[in-house]
């Protein structure tokens, strides 16, 4: 089975394309800071210079190096994506699992909770919390995002669990006297692994977009650099009016490419795991 997935995975064009783009940016996150000596915040050159051999992505209105800001901003994006997306996947999976597996009043309550959090716009809650929190870090941002982005995952996992629960092998396990936690760990979870991987990828992308939005309106981390913050400064300090495209194009493009590549990867994975889609 494993090999069969690998076989189709290696031959799936969407998967290969998506993964290469993500890996490219991941590599740039680690290698990028080594390529530049400039401090991302340092006023190191002539202001508002277009890209040149000296400053690959040009400089800001204050003479900061855009390339240095860009490569230093990639890390936090991946960090928030992995942490926030991971947390959202974890919470959503746990709640969805329990609701779907236990049923009854536990399901009712968890369902109610999910429905409430679905309705409350994530952004609004982050807005008010972030506004009152004096010191904010990437970690806190990721935790907030994770704690608010889980509901759709919980819903989807609940539905999956319900359909898996109805299958024979779970019945068999139950008849043979396995404990509920064991059934979930050994019978249900492995069957959902592929699904959870895809959920995580979507949450990863969503967290990056969410963080960029927060950073852009100035509610992101109070220290450090991020892609959203770059766009915030670019807009605030007249990059638009001055036509300084090199300032605002790279951060947004990187986000769009990373998140888009994640989505495409997801479609590819879906085709690999789902034979019905595969043989077209």
């Amino acid at each position, binding site marked *: 089975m494993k090999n069969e997935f690998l076989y189709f995975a290696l031959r799936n064009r969407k998967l290969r394309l998506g993964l290469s783009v993500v890996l490219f940016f991941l590599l740039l996150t680690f290698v990028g800071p080594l390529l530049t000596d400039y401090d991302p915040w340092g006023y190191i050159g002539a202001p508002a210079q277009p890209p040149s051999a000296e400053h690959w992505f040009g400089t800001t209105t204050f003479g900061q190096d855009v390339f240095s800001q860009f490569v230093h901003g990639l890390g936090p994006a991946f960090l928030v994506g992995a942490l926030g997306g991971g947390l959202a996947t974890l919470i959503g999976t746990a709640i969805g699992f329990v609701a779907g597996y236990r049923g009854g009043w536990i399901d009712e309550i968890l369902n109610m909770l999910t429905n*409430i959090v679905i309705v*409350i716009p994530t*952004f*609004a809650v982050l807005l008010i919390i972030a506004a009152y929190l004096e010191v904010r870090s990437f970690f806190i941002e990721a935790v907030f995002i994770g704690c608010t982005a889980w509901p*759709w995952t919980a819903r989807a996992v609940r539905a999956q669990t319900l359909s898996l629960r109805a299958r024979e092998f779970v019945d068999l396990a139950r008849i043979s006297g396995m404990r509920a936690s064991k059934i979930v760990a050994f019978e249900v979870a492995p069957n959902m692994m592929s699904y959870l991987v895809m959920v995580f990828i979507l949450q990863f992308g969503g967290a990056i977009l969410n963080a960029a939005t927060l950073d852009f309106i100035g509610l992101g981390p109070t220290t450090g650099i991020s892609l959203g913050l770059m766009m915030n400064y670019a807009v605030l300090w007249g990059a638009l009016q001055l036509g300084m495209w090199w300032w605002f194009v790279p951060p947004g493009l990187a986000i769009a490419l990373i998140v*888009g590549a994640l989505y*495409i990867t997801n479609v590819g994975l879906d085709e690999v795991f789902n034979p019905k889609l595969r043989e077209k």
Partner: protein
Amino acid sequence: MKRYLTRKLAIYILTFFLAVTIDWVIPRFMPGDPVQTMLSRANLRAEAVEVMRGYYLKAFGLDVPVWRQYLNFWVAVFHGDLGVSVYLFPKPVSRVIMEAVPYSLALLIPATVLSWIAGNKFGAFAARRKWLDNTLLPVGYLLNATPYMWLGILLAWAFGIALGWFPIAGAYGFDRTPSLSLGFILDFLWHWFLPFASLFLVQFGGWAIGMRNMVIYELEADYSQYLEALGTPRGLIRRYAFRNALLPQITGLALQLGVIVAGSVVTEIVFSYPGIGYLILQAIQNQDYFLIQGCFLFIIIGVLLANLVVDIVYIVVDPRTRRGMMGES
């Protein structure tokens, strides 16, 4: 149907209750003294500090027991009293918000509704049509992955600065005052177009992709296969598939509302469009906490109302909910 609606309403009422509570709790129980923090951040002149301190103490009502404070807060909310804006002192927050709302709605509603309709139509059309489908997939996913503000920035730069076709700031020219004259309306539309387009495009990608996937799923469904085996023309099968795929897209709209609101906030910021989003930026930059709280409450109420509208539409469109055969979505 009655059950379906009451269930939904119960959730919305509970959510509203929770939202008001959050709005009350967070300023009071976050680490630190909110009044002191606000005053020190607000950067006021010395005599203003004293006035503001007095005002804040009274506004927060910190001199009565906690349960009393909470009750008072509810009373204030129902009276539409959300405090006074610091940034536009002494305008009441509710009035500041009400003045901004029309601009936000003028952007949000057309962009959301039109992109939903157009995206669904296009997605359904492209599904299973090789050439279009191969174009739609990457473009749609990329659009959907684009941060709203970035697309806004790009459009502003390309069509506002580089080409100079559209203005990129405000809802109308500085030399105009709002009126119903043709000149003003044209000027308004001219300012409105770019922010609208950027909101429209990002959402369009998402709806088109979603619809394409749903239609393919429906075309694979047993009922489609059966119709095909009975020699039914493709047109009818596609029509059924489209209609059935539309239902999850309606639910999807409700799920996306939060993201769309966030998108419109940042879009307004990019275009300095005087709606709620721009207000939020001003409130944050000026440490205007009552205004932030007011915006929070307002967004929640707006999203709840929009959810209700979506629910009603769903009941109208899906015969099964009308016949009371589905407990919930």
